[in-house]
């Protein structure tokens, strides 16, 4: 659903790219003289107002995410204090008091929201000495690093493969790459992760020493395989996007002109086709970074990477209330922010999205 709509938007922005600067300028001028515009049948909202509206909607979305998570979390049977070995009623009572779980649920909700507004996500139930804020601060950069690298792999691969398939349209390279693309979209990442790791084990055994570490975190070599595996799905997606975008560009008039001018095919490919076709790919990168950064649970598990994705999933299994809330709200806000950023950028690039 979101993919479709983003592709749709990209098409719009591409069409209008040629004139985006003019339009932005016009809009800005209009915005400053908004009151004089009453005679016009359409008008654009001023940029600051548009941005403010988007941000407000974002805040409401995050509040909604927090509330929904809170309700869902408390409706699941069991609680974080349950353990393998049951404790006596006295200990149980003391524990509930310590964590404030003895209060009525509405009061817990208000206290939690109050703390959250102050930026305090509380203390983890499973790692009882760590603040959720610390957990996010320690582990999010790892996930982000992995995510950014994965997106780089995906973007680079997507552009190259996509362009190649377009150039060799309906010929053998196209068929092979598109087959791989379908594989990349349909095979889940834990399969690729396991295969990738096995490949590393065999490479290392072949060369006789640990050439590329099979798991762990710390150096750039540790990051290669996990980010490649994590980026594969997106790479496949971008390849398809790039291919269709390239095919559209091929038939444009300016390509014909370039050919008529007698430019070399390589120059046409790099300077005219690639540069114009790459725009839609760049525009989906923002949301993709967010999606990849939040979706690395399996890869983090298989490659023993201390990222936040593990906490995100394990907290739910362990019903670690504070960590569930902290990671969900944080990731929710992160995604919302990414979407808002893209929206605002569109507002600049294509004023039509700001029409009243």
């Amino acid at each position, binding site marked *: 659903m979101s993919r479709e709509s983003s592709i749709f938007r990209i098409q719009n922005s591409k069409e209008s790219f040629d004139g985006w600067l003019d339009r932005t300028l016009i809009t800005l001028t209009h915005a400053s003289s908004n009151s004089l515009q009453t005679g016009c049948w359409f008008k654009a909202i001023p940029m600051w107002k548009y941005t403010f509206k988007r941000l407000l909607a974002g805040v409401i979305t995050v509040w909604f995410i927090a509330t929904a998570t809170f309700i869902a979390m408390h409706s699941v049977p069991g609680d974080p204090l*349950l353990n393998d*070995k049951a404790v006596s009623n006295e200990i149980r009572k003391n524990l509930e008091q310590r964590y404030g779980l003895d209060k009525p649920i509405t009061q817990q909700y208000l206290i939690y929201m109050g703390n959250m507004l102050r930026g305090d996500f509380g203390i983890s139930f499973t790692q009882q000495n760590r603040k959720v804020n610390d957990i996010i601060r320690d582990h999010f950069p790892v996930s982000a690093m992995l995510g950014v690298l994965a997106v780089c792999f995906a973007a680079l691969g997507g552009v190259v493969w996509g362009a190649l398939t377009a150039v060799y349209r309906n010929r053998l390279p196209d068929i092979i790459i598109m087959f791989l693309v379908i594989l990349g979209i349909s095979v889940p990442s834990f399969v690729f992760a396991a295969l990738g790791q096995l490949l590393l084990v065999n490479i*290392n055994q072949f060369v006789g020493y*640990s050439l590329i570490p099979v798991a762990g975190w*710390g150096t750039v070599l540790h990051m290669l395989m996990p980010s490649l595996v994590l980026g594969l799905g997106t790479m496949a997606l971008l390849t398809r996007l790039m291919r269709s975008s390239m095919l559209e560009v091929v038939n444009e008039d300016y390509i014909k002109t370039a050919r008529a001018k007698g430019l070399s095919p390589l120059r046409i490919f790099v300077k005219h086709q690639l540069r114009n076709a790459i725009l839609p790919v760049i525009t989906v990168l923002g949301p993709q970074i967010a999606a990849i950064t939040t979706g690395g649970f399996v890869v983090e*598990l298989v490659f023993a990477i201390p990222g936040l994705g593990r906490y995100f999933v394990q907290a739910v*299994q*362990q019903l670690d209330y504070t960590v569930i809330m902290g990671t969900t709200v944080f990731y929710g806000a992160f995604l919302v922010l990414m979407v808002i950023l893209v929206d605002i950028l569109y507002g600049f690039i294509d004023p039509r999205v700001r029409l009243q």
Partner: protein
Amino acid sequence: MMRPNKGNKGTVYLILLWILSPMCLAEAVNYDRQSITIALTQEPPNLNTMRTTDLVSFFVLGHVMEGLTRYDARGRLVAGVAESWEIDDLEVTFHLRKNALWSDGRPVTAHDFLFAWQHIIDPASAAPYASIHYPILNAEAIHKGNKPVTALGVSAPDDLTLKVSLQNQCGYFLKLMAHAAFFPVRQDFFNRQHDRYAAEAENLLYNGPFELVSWVHDASLTMAKNPDYWDAGSIALHQIEVGYITADNRTRLNLFRNNGIALVRLDGETVKDAANQKLKVRTFVTGGVAFIRFNVTKGSPTENIHVRRAIQAVFDPELFVNRIMAIPGYKPAYTFFPSWLAGVDGKFQQEYPVAPVKIDERVGRELISSARRELSVNRIPQLVLLTVASPTGNKISEFLQGLLKSKLDIDLRIDSQTFKQYLAKSRNGEFDLLLSSWFPDFDDIMTYADLLGSGNPNNRGGYASEEYDKWLRLVQGATDQRVRMDAAAELQKIIIDEAMVLPMAETGSAYVQHHKLKGVVRRVLGADPDYTYARVVK
């Protein structure tokens, strides 16, 4: 146009160094440095001895901390921080050694034990393991809020003497001293940390054979030999490096194959891989018991003894272990008291053996007929089996479903839940059969016998028998080991005759270990695997 200059060269070297650095990183074992690298399945959730409850934390704490007693390389209980002790009826006096030091150089004193124990039993601390302290005088009353903390039967007349008064006689009190919940904590250090105690490596003091020198959450821990440890001469390893933390079994096996870690535990899947790769698979008994709890409260068909005994009559532990579990190290269980438990002189199981229940389908069907008559139904209603949603849990459930259907014509509905929901439902008695396992807290038959006592919160089937409780009190209270074990044998008989629970298997573990690593001790209790006395050979 790029021209190489000095600055660029430096950058290139730096990048090269960065890329090449893993090559000189951790290897599984290193003889010259006497260091090993291992992996953990999860981040140690809590290294605060007064609050922790999980095995991963116990593993780390067992290497970096020490109680009054400890277990040696051959699994015997020996002196730890306490040099000697006297037991006089209800009084135990520990004499602490002078050269037991904290990692900041100050001596471990009796006050450190006093502080930790009072802290745990204080209801305000809400310590999950508080009830393990109940054998101490007034502990239970304090914990229930009926007496002040100062009433605890522990005193420190001087720095090196700790006097403990017991509530009742307790045959296993010395063994309890090796448990993390009885480790010392130094008050001034604890107070200085506020709520940061045990949050990072530097927020803890160590008095064990090793000390934690670095801890990167969810990524790595480094335990280095503690040069001030009183028995440092017996410790060969200089460093235990936890290089990886992941729950993925296959990743850990891959790390082992790549010479990245020195020991790895195998599950049902990876054990096949290891065998295929011709690795030498070792096994040991982990001390737990896998069993089925029956719901014996009103309304459940399993309240009827014939139903329970019918299931007992068709369940073959040997077939179960060999065909269904199929993990080397598991053993069929015919009694609820596992084979490692001590009896009077030797092992309990050898001194009080049980005849395996005869597996007989005909007996099972007859029992079901009498159950139908007693319940006055045409057919035993569908039973609900509650289990944790895991590959092993599902495998066992499906086996039981097939078994009950084919042998007894009983329908079994499998209720597969996530762990927390499984716990919640089992505590509310929302099951007829409950797939369970139990791992010991201390080295005594009580750790199992107590589980079916009528007041135990872990007695989830709701079994309550005065007869059982009577013998149980004797096992707990008597000092004569013979009397205790005779009483335990009575309990064993009741459990089997009444089919209170159905023991299935003694848990085991299969693992592979680096051939240059020697002296690793596998333990049923405390830190396992125990690398304290391990060494790397050439």
